[in-house]
Every structure is written in structure tokens, then in C-alpha cells.
């Protein structure tokens, strides 16, 4: 596809259940980012992948959050034992560096509601 895609677009789950969010980056983009955005707020950085490696996982809110990337392409963000405070929009971005300036291209997000 031409842009970053994410699935599902919306997810409603019950407290305590696990959820898996998927991100398909733009083809050829080696860097991939996950962010969390609470209602109408700025973006909270979660994790960054360069290729399949995540050099820094310190942005993940708790050990219930994990992420992986395979084949340098698709990434999944998994939230185990979801809590109501996990409700937010989860955004994925892939990036390309041109002339020393990195530009991130965002997907439409997955809206997660934990009941």
C-alpha cells in the first residue's frame, strides 16, 4: 500500500484480556515507531525498531506491553491483561531519512477501549 496501515481500526475488549495490534509500514522504511495518544493529547513514545531490533524498550509503560517486528516489515504491539487505563489510540509510524532529516509517516491508529 501507499501508506502505513494499522489493524484493527477499533478494538473493544474486556479488562484482563490480551490484545494484539498490527502495523504495516511503508515498504522500504527501516525504522518503525509505536506511540500512544490519550484523548486529544500529544503522543507518548512507546518503542522504536530499526530493522527487527528495538534498541530501547524503556518507553513501554509496563511489562504487560511488548512489541516485535519480523522481516523488517510488519510489527505487532501486544498488551497482556489489559487495564482500563490502557484505553487510547495506538499510532504506528515508519520513517525515511532524507538529507539528514527524518520524516515519520503515521498510520490512522487503532482505537482501543478496555471496558
Amino acid at each position: 500500500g501507499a501508506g502505513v496501515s494499522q489493524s484493527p481500526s477499533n478494538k473493544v475488549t474486556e479488562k484482563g484480556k490480551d490484545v494484539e495490534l498490527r502495523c504495516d509500514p511503508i515498504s522500504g522504511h527501516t525504522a518503525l515507531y509505536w506511540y500512544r495518544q490519550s484523548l486529544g493529547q500529544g503522543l507518548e513514545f512507546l518503542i522504536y525498531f530499526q530493522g527487527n531490533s528495538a534498541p530501547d524498550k524503556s518507553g513501554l509503560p509496563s511489562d504487560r506491553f511488548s512489541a516485535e517486528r519480523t522481516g523488517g516489515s510488519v510489527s505487532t504491539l501486544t498488551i497482556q491483561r489489559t487495564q482500563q487505563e490502557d484505553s487510547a489510540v495506538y499510532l504506528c509510524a515508519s520513517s525515511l531519512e532524507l538529507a539528514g532529516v527524518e520524516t515519520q509517516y503515521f498510520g490512522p491508529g487503532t482505537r482501543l477501549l478496555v471496558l
Partner: protein
Amino acid sequence: TQLLEQSPQFLSIQEGENLTVYCNSSSVFSSLQWYRQEPGEGPVLLVTVVTGGEVKKLKRLTFQFGDARKDSSLHITAAQPGDTGLYLCAGVRLQGAQKLVFGQGTRLTINP
């Protein structure tokens, strides 16, 4: 700790008025980006300012990067209802995994 402070957080004005949104930090960034986000979509990059004191214009939008590369402003002239949205500034860092540090955003509403 919010590294980038945006103000105002909410702004509602009438069509045709001018407005300025500010993005301030105590940290120096290699460059600064402004994004616009509409409901149900991800942020879309509007501009990147790289040099201290740089001014960039995008139609009715004027972006300025502070001389010390710690702050920026977005000025909209003769605002239109189509300008409504969430405007986010993001400081670009060369070091560390978190390449972009986002402000909390300014929710702008332009009333017809």
C-alpha cells in the same frame, strides 16, 4: 516531564481572524516539526524547520524556529474552518531511540 510545552491547549476563534500557537522547551533540538491531526487519522507532517531563526511559509501558515532552537511558533493568517484540527509540535533529537518529542497539542476550532 513534558519537554515541549504548547500553548494555548485550546483555541476557538472566528473565521478570518489571525492566531499564533507557541511551542517552548528548555532543551535544544536539531530541528522541529509541526504536524496537523484530524479526527480518526494519524498526524500529518506540515513542515520541518532546521536552522535557528528560520521562517517557513505554507500558504497562510508561517512557521518560525527560535534562534536558540528551543522554541517555535505557528502563525495562521485569516483562519478558515478548514484549518480546524489538532496541531502538534515535535522536537527532533539525533540521539536516543525517541527521535521525536511531542508537545501536548493545540486543539484549534475555526467557527464560520
